[in-house]
């Protein structure tokens, strides 16, 4: 059941090979790869890299052309270049918010799953309360309290997303506790730490990874909504959600201004969702049966 150290690299290789054969997962990987590339190489790929902070009022609201591939915005800045730098913010928000949610949610789920008693119940009830309210509503309340800024958006998203990980980890840990190999490890005198680190965590890694991938998409969507509502990082940050909000008063004439960042959000979130679906098929044989004989 548990892969030993020697086979773990080949297990990772197995996952990658299977993903490459799953058409939708492959599309997801390509989309995420493109996003990462756009973010890393933004200064190189941008045609007007200084436009994030510079103003060119004379060039405002120009239609897409050879010089400005996706047109210009209300400040005369190149939409395409700002989009590339916006990818950095999107990745930053997604990675830190999901990472922080993992750091909170996984330990909470492990503790609640391992021990039986009022403390475990309390932990899960608290996460249930978070799950009982739509994430965007809570995130709005927190972001409004803290004020619009990049760290506060990340904080609001982390504070509202960790219960999803706690739920998954808790459920999986409880299932594992009924397994004979866990029971025998306990009987052999393994400490809770050893049991968790060597036996429980490796066996629940799959659902956590799947949840993290889907969580990236979900978090990026919520972050864009917060940006759109004016709760994101303040201008001139090229955040995609805020850019869409800014573009509204120039419709229907400056159609490119609103269209481009929305497409960027769409493709990014789709990438993480498709990868999450693919990972679920490859990593979780129990669910694969549910989704039935190869869906591609």
């Amino acid at each position, binding site marked *: 059941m548990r892969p030993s150290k020697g086979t773990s690299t080949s297990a990772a290789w197995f996952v990658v090979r299977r993903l490459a054969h799953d058409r*939708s997962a492959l599309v997801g990987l390509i989309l995420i790869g493109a996003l990462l590339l756009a973010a890393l190489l933004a200064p190189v790929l941008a045609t007007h890299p200084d436009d994030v902070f510079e103003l060119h009022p004379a060039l405002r609201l120009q239609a897409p052309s050879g010089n400005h591939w996706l047109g210009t915005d209300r400040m005369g800045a190149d939409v395409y270049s700002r989009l590339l730098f916006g990818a950095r913010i999107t990745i930053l928000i997604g990675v830190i918010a999901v990472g922080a949610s993992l750091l909170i949610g996984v330990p909470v789920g492990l503790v609640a799953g391992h021990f039986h008693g009022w403390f475990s119940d309390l932990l899960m*009830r*608290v996460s*249930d*309360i*978070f799950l*009982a*309210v*739509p*994430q*965007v*509503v*809570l995130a*709005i*309340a*927190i972001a*409004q*309290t*803290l004020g619009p800024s990049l760290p506060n958006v990340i904080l609001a998203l982390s504070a509202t997303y960790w219960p999803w990980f706690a739920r998954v980890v808790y459920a999986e840990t409880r299932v594992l506790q009924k397994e004979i190999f866990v029971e025998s490890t306990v009987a052999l005198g393994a400490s809770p730490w050893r049991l968790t680190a060597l036996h429980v965590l490796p066996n629940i890694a799959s659902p956590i990874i799947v949840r993290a991938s889907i969580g990236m*998409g979900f978090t990026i*969507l919520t972050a*864009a*909504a917060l940006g*759109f*509502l*004016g*709760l994101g990082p303040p201008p001139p940050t090229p955040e995609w*959600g805020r850019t*869409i909000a800014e573009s*509204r008063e120039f*419709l*229907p004439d400056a*159609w490119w201004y*609103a*269209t481009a*960042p*929305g497409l960027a*959000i*769409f*493709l990014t*979130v*789709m990438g993480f*969702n*498709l990868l999450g679906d693919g990972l679920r098929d490859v990593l979780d044989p129990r669910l694969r*049966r*549910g*989704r*039935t004989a190869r*869906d591609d």
Partner: protein
Amino acid sequence: MRLLALALHRLAWFVPTLLGLLVLTFVISRVIPADPVALVAGETATPAQVEALRRQLGYDRPLPVQFVDYLARLARGDMGTSIFTRRPIVQDLAHRLPATIELTVVAMVVSVLAGVPLGVVSALWRNSPLDHAVRVVTVSGLAIASFWLGIMLQLLFAMRLGWTPLNGRLQGFPPEAITGFYLVDAALTGDGPAFGAALRHLALPAATLAFPALATLVRFTRAGVLDVMQSNFVLYERAMGLPRPVIVWKYTLRSALTSTVTQIGLLFGILLAGAVVTEAVFDWPGIGTYAVSSILQSDYNAVMGFTIWAGTIFIVVNLLVDVVQTLVDPRERAT
């Protein structure tokens, strides 16, 4: 009797959840901010005004005392006064609730009417071109930012084609208020033109709101039908030589759709969360637009009031769904 006990058990869960929500909003509004009173007073208040307000609101007392006071105020239906409308926040929200409910219900009906048949069809004809087309729709529905979808729909149907109004709930006078739902009121008073106008205003926001919910519903229905199609009892019916239509219509769908129906609680959550941004895009005069304009005006109490309302509505709907599910689905009773 057992059923009643189960329903009561679920009901018992309601009170602590609601209390938990209130603790959460209390922590967000009183404990996290450096100076909660400054937030409530707004950006234009002078330091002297802030101090006066602090004593008036009792924010200078210990937190536990404040929390009890907070609960007592909420129990009386007092959420404070909006700095912007100068009216009690509870009144503002109650006044705007019918618009949100009308939009949400229409979106729910649209997503169920379109989503369930699409899910069934794509499961029955798995891997057909139709199934692939449906999958593209569902993948898109879960990845699209609803505020952007709304803006794109406005751009195309309202600005370019001129088929629908750009935003709002109705131009001119609303139909005579009976229920507060324009469609229902117009139908009751036999006001045909108002009904048509209300429907045209609803089209774009309802479509925007319904799309992600529809995608979720299609996915869930499709997986449910496929699961049942591969279960042992369907295998047995096939082996017994039952014709496919009988297996599909009589046995598979009944079994698969029971669990789909119970997803309405989940669906409602998606719709309620989506309503905040969708309403903002279409200037729909519901509680979502109220929340957004309160954010923009830094009307702090109003934002917290909205959070409590939205959270409470959501918890109540989930409670109802849970109870109904227990009553409808025999499998739930076993556990």
